[in-house]
Structures are given as structure tokens and as C-alpha cells.
């Protein structure tokens, strides 16, 4: 079977229309979870089927696609999904955030600020922020409908009671345009401030749970907190050991079996661009000969 037998971006046109309708609804009501007829994709649930379907519905042949997983372009999932779209859509791909027109991401927002005209597609495991406190779908729907969000603050209360501070460090709940409470997908809370007033279109796809939601450009997104325990976008108190960046989210890498570790930017493109521009971190070393 050759690649010509796939429709553009794998999904048939009718499915793409259905997904686009869902996306438009989501854009019209920011933060509201729109049910959609999630299709069986050639990857299991839990591997980004929601994000893939949203991306497939949005792609045009002129697009330039970037795919990242935990900020990196070169991890297995990012590579697989990128290859998938290269085969089924034949679109150009890139690792540079500034050159991408559509970015599919798992669990991170790129450090480089996005611009108008870009689309960011998030992979979402559990779209319902209230799910862990209220298991009944009938109840959570009512709570969203009637704006009954007291329970969300109960969760944060429990955190403070148990840990002395709000311990939620990723998938930190937010309120969108003062109306819907939303789960921004398991991005670190460090990334939450990037959600608000973002010039790009942000789309969220949950394949197994069959929900799509969206943030149109320049939407107001506020992280939930208490007056006396305000939200803090925290990260490890280090600079990147490779490029010296102060304000990017870091991965901690264990380097030997004697407890040695280093901190590097989670966003690989961001780090590489900085190094190319001459920034050097504590552990920076020139690339060995023969490597591109």
C-alpha cells in the first residue's frame, strides 16, 4: 500500500468537517468542552489521538508542522506523529517554533512566544477538571452549565491543608473569560501564564474522552487560587546548563550513578536557538566534529 491511498492527513473529508464544526463551537464558547465523534486512529488511546485528529482537521498542504513531546522534537512520540503527517499529508515540517504554522504539543507550551496566525494543538488525556472529585458525568455537566465551581476550590483547599501550599504542579485548573473552568492539559503550571492573551489559536483535543475545547486568540485565562495563597508559576531554581537561560522550564537529567545531574531547557528548539546565537550555560561544550 503506497502513501497515495491515504486521504490528505489520513481522515476522510466528512470526518474533518465534523471536527471543524466542533472546533468552531469550541472557539465560539472558550473553555467549553464540545463532544465530538472521535475516530479510531492508527495509534492507541493515550498516545495523542485527540491532538492528531484536531491537527488532521486543520492542516492544509501549505502548512509547516512542528510536533513536540514534553518540549522536545526528538522524542519517540513527537517523531512518530511528525512522520505520520509527513506520510499522510506530505506537509513541510520544522523544529523551529518561529517557522511553524501549526504546532502539536504534548504537555508543554513552547518558550518562544507565539504569533497571530499560528495554531497550537494540545493533547489532552482527561478534559474534565472536576473529574477526580466528582466522578459522575451528569453532575459535572450540570456544574459547568450552572457555573457551580465551588468544588474546584475544594481541591485546592485540600492541597493546602495537606501540603501547606497548592501542590498541583501540572494540569492546573484555569477560568476562561470568567466563565468556564478548564483543564489546560498536563502542562506544568509554569506554562499557565502563557495561556492568557495569547495571539495564537489554542485547540485542545481528547481522543478517548471525545472532547474538543478551544481558546481563541487574546482570551483571558486566569489560574484558580485563594486570596491568601496566590498562584505561583514555579520552576526549578536553576539556569539551563547548556544555554544559560534563566526563565525557561527545565528538565532534570541524571548524568551518572553518583547523584550527578544537570538542568536543561525542556524546549529543545529554544535551547538550540540560544546556543546558536552564542549563549552558553555552565556545561556548554562545542559540538564534536562530524556532527551536524
Amino acid at each position, binding site marked *: 500500500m503506497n502513501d497515495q491511498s491515504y486521504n490528505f492527513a489520513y481522515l476522510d473529508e466528512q470526518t474533518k468537517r465534523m471536527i471543524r464544526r466542533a472546533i468552531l463551537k469550541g472557539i465560539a464558547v472558550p473553555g467549553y468542552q464540545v463532544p465530538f465523534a472521535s475516530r479510531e486512529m492508527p495509534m492507541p488511546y493515550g498516545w495523542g489521538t485527540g491532538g492528531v485528529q484536531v491537527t488532521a482537521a486543520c492542516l492544509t498542504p501549505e502548512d509547516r508542522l512542528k510536533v513536540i513531546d514534553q518540549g522536545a522534537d526528538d522524542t519517540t512520540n513527537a517523531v512518530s506523529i511528525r512522520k505520520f503527517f509527513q506520510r499522510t499529508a506530505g506537509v513541510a515540517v520544522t523544529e523551529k517554533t518561529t517557522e511553524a504554522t501549526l504546532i502539536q504539543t504534548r504537555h508543554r507550551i513552547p518558550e518562544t512566544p507565539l504569533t497571530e496566525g499560528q495554531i497550537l494543538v494540545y493533547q489532552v488525556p482527561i478534559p474534565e477538571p472536576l473529574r477526580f*472529585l466528582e466522578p459522575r458525568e451528569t453532575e459535572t455537566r*450540570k456544574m459547568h452549565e*450552572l457555573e*457551580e*465551581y*465551588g*468544588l474546584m*476550590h*475544594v481541591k485546592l*483547599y*485540600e492541597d*493546602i*491543608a*495537606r501540603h501547606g501550599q497548592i501542590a498541583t504542579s501540572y494540569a492546573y485548573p484555569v477560568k476562561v473569560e470568567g466563565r468556564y473552568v478548564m483543564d489546560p492539559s498536563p502542562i506544568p503550571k509554569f506554562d499557565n501564564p502563557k495561556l492568557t492573551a495569547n495571539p495564537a489559536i489554542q485547540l485542545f483535543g481528547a481522543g478517548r474522552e471525545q472532547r474538543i475545547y478551544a481558546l481563541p486568540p487574546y482570551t483571558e485565562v486566569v489560574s484558580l487560587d*485563594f*486570596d*491568601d*495563597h496566590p498562584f505561583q508559576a514555579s520552576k526549578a531554581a536553576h539556569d539551563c546548563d547548556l544555554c544559560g537561560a534563566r526563565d525557561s522550564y527545565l528538565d532534570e537529567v541524571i548524568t551518572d550513578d553518583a547523584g550527578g545531574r544537570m538542568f536543561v531547557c525542556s524546549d529543545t528548539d529554544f535551547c538550540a536557538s540560544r546556543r546558536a546565537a552564542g549563549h552558553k550555560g555552565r556545561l556548554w561544550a562545542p559540538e564534536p566534529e562530524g556532527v551536524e
Partner: protein
Amino acid sequence: MTLMEKMVATDQPLLKVEGLTKRYGPRIGCLDVSFDLYPGEVLGIVGESGSGKSTLLSCLAGHQRADLGRIAYDGRDLLAMSETERRRLGRTDWAYVHQNPRDGLRMGVSAGGNVGERLMAVGARHYGEIRGKAADWLGRVEIAGDRIDDRPSAFSGGMQQRLQIARNLVTSPRLVFMDEPTGGLDVSVQARLLDLLRGLVRDMGLSVIIVTHDLAVVRLLAHRLMVMKDGRVVEQGLTDQVLDDPQHAYTQLLVSSVLQV
């Protein structure tokens, strides 16, 4: 305003029920029930299983929709209210104490979180204040303060019931529905709970509708009594009058069937 002043000053009933009827197909749940409830009054509804008292309570509390009749709360037509409004009422002005405390609590949330939830649901956003109020209420229902972070699953039945009461009363509701609140509790625990409820009713000027099959509970707690049989109200009046001078055949039977200890 003292309780007495409250009771006398208002000519407007807090709850006005007219001709409330609920059927389950050909069976009668409750038929043509009418009564008024004034601020600060405790109304007991007694009857045996199948009398319709639980149906009546759930219709009044908005858990079920009656087929006929009118309910006016504070002058507002309940049945014409939107669901949003009714749910908001349920979080602020009203409270519902379930027979089984597990139905009225979040078992996976700490005691403090359970009590604080209603406050957070109406917009409280200061952790310290919420915790302070929760601690205060745990004290009022005689739960030790150091248990504020424990889950209700670690509490005894009596403690769970008291926690449920605290959770319901923290927003100072005006009308409380209680469904057999002492059912399933040990006798000594019941006594404690009844004493607590009496005090709270008096101090907070609560109106309460309490459904029970236990006549001793209504004698201690209720000002007025309604006796139900087969979905109908067969007698109503002052609690002590209905129990000491019952007029209806069924009431007389009920009263004389109580074991004297």
C-alpha cells in the same frame, strides 16, 4: 432578632404548600398536602413506611417534581423557578440532611473541606478564613478540632452525621430538611444529636422540616406535627397536642403503639 420576635413578627410564612400531590403511576406518593411553615418553626412529619412522608420531603426539597399543587418559598413560586435558581437556593438558603451521612458528605474530602465547600461554592476565596469558619463549626457540632484534616471515612456514624449538619449549616440556611437524621444511630448518640439540633434551631432561628418515624424525636424537636398515612395527612397540630390528645384513629393507634421504657 430573637427567635420569639422572629416568630411573632412575620405574618408571611416562609414556606407555603398548597395541594401538593405526587403519583407514581396509579400509586399515590402523597396526596393534597397543604401547610404553612413560619420562620423558627420545626415541623415534624411522621408516619410509617409507605406513608408518603419521604415523597413529600423530596418534593418539597426539589429532588422530585410534584404533579399538582403549589409551593411558595418566601413568596416565590418554587415550581416556576429555573433550575439554576433552585440549585442556588439549595446551596445557600436551604439545607438537606440525609439519613445516611454518606449521602450528604464527600467521603474523599477532609472534614474541613466538606464544611468549607458551601462557603467556596458561594465565592469565599480566602483559605485562612474558610479554614477558620470550618474549625469553628466543627467545634459547634462537637467534633475535635484536630480532626479537621481527617476524611469522614475515618469518623464514627454519629460524627459523620454531625459533620453533615455542620456542612449544611455553615452558610446559615433558613430552611433545613431532615430525613430521619437520627436513624441508625445509637441511643446515646441520638440524644446528643437531638440536643445539638435543638440548640442550633434556637440560636439560628432555623425552620426545619423533619421526617421521621420516631415519635420521641418529634416530641423533643418539633413544634408542630403532621401525621401521614397512605399518602395523606390525617392529622396536624401542636406536637404535644397531637401526641397527647390524638383525634384521628390512625394517630391514636400510632401513639399507643410506642413502647414505654
